[in-house]
């Protein structure tokens, strides 16, 4: 188990938004967390990764407890997080954004090549300011930056928000390639079909708790899931 979460609870101003969260991710797996808006997916990721204090629970990454650690330390341990808002550096160039992904190290030329191959549009726009990129390009840059740190676990929060279907598909194609190279991926998605095709396993989250879990196949065949998330009656 590369990531193990037990009894995690977190929230804002005293009241918990997520409760009793238990899940795990094994090395090399692709795991999805699906659920509607407000289900708590973002809160889960943020509290897991040090951006929000957890009120209780444990989070173990490669055996070490990371609950309570500040986000920047967790990032250096080998988890890269691509948040829904991306948080790029708008007045810095694409190259500068990418290079900082490797902080504190210098970017590794091999990784640099890999990212550029994966996202050729970024290579074209390397000297452009990140703030001037289109939505799809910004998403690519956010992913690329996350990859520069050579993470062992890549966590993405709704990577396809605001992307046209073609670009969303491209994003998942890139993730597929990365999976092929052995990267472990944890993704939260509202656009369920894409995530389902990509992942091995998944958890269904509603109202701050996990309601269902299973392999992607199991979930795809689950009538409740089909009704709520796949639009099948």
């Amino acid at each position, binding site marked *: 188990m590369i990531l193990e979460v037990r009894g995690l609870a977190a929230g804002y101003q005293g009241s918990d938004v997520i409760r009793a969260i238990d899940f795990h991710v094994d090395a090399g797996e692709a795991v999805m967390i699906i659920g509607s808006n407000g289900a708590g997916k973002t809160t889960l990721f943020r509290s897991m990764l040090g951006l929000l204090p957890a009120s209780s629970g444990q989070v173990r990454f490669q055996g070490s407890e990371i609950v309570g650690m500040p*986000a*920047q*330390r967790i990032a250096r341990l080998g988890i890269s997080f691509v948040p829904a808002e991306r948080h790029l*550096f708008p*007045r*810095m160039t694409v190259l500068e954004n990418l290079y*900082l992904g490797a*902080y504190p190290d210098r970017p590794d030329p091999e990784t640099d090549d890999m990212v550029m191959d994966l996202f050729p549009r970024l290579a074209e726009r390397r000297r452009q300011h990140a703030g001037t990129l289109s939505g799809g390009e910004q998403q690519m840059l956010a992913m690329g930056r996350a990859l520069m740190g050579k993470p062992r676990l890549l966590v993405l929060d709704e990577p396809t928000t605001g992307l046209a279907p073609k670009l969303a598909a491209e994003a998942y194609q890139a993730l597929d390639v990365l999976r092929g190279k052995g990267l472990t991926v944890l993704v939260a998605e509202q656009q369920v079909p894409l995530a389902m095709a990509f992942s091995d396993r998944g958890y269904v989250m509603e109202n701050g708790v996990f309601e269902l879990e299973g392999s992607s196949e199991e979930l795809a065949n689950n009538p409740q899931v089909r009704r709520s998330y796949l639009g099948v009656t």
Partner: protein
Amino acid sequence: MIANILDGIVLGLQFGLLAAGLTLVYGLGGVLNLAYGQMAVLSAIATLFAIDAGVPTLPAVGVGLAVGVLLGLIFDQTILRPIYRIQGEARVLLSLLLTLGVAFIVDGYLTWRYPTEGLSIRIGGGPIDILGVPMRRGSIVASVITLLALGALFAFFRGTTLGRAVRSVIEDEEGARLVGIDPRRMLRVILALSGFLAALVAITQSMVRPVTVTAGFGITVFALIVTVVGGLGSVTGAMFAGIILGMVNNIAASYIGTFLSLLILLGAAALTILIRPSGLLGVKE
């Protein structure tokens, strides 16, 4: 007229470097350091004491610069702590009030204890001719040093990993944390830098005219005006605003007197806030 413009540029470069220190701290830490002028003055006084104690000029300047850096770090370890324990608007308010308090403490003590002291570094040699205007050697040396410092600053921010890391925190603090950058540590670096810049400007300014113990609040006001016009958080903006305002100040002063020329600068700052609060090149919220 040319003399005015040249003097204005000399002054403007100083304005720019000075404002850079203030704007960086605001851009990174959200704190407006109203005790900035006092940091500059303390560094100048440290240099003065070193010279009086017999230390040769260059090492004495080193002492002053070291004091500047030290003050920045002390600021980080003392004032910034209670400020960082709160969030949002209360933090801004508290930072204004606490730094104002510190400014008063330092200013009150210095003007009481050493009311007539001031640093003045004399650069020997006759005037140098620039575009037909005889410029004092001190002004030239001060400007050259300032230009070098500005160049070094740019090289730092564009070319070094640490510099880029600092910029990233100004751009997007959460994004910086996501790539492993510790904003608090970056702030410490910037505060040390800010103290250094305040010291450098005070010391080079003393080559042009004496920097007295009472100059503290005036320095802060000028730094504030240039920072606002250039844009909170932008060093490039500070530099451009500095040079422009330096020239405006000098030209206006020679035509309508010092008090009213300050009014023009204040007006420029007010106008900037009203029309384009992010300043010339600042971070647009």
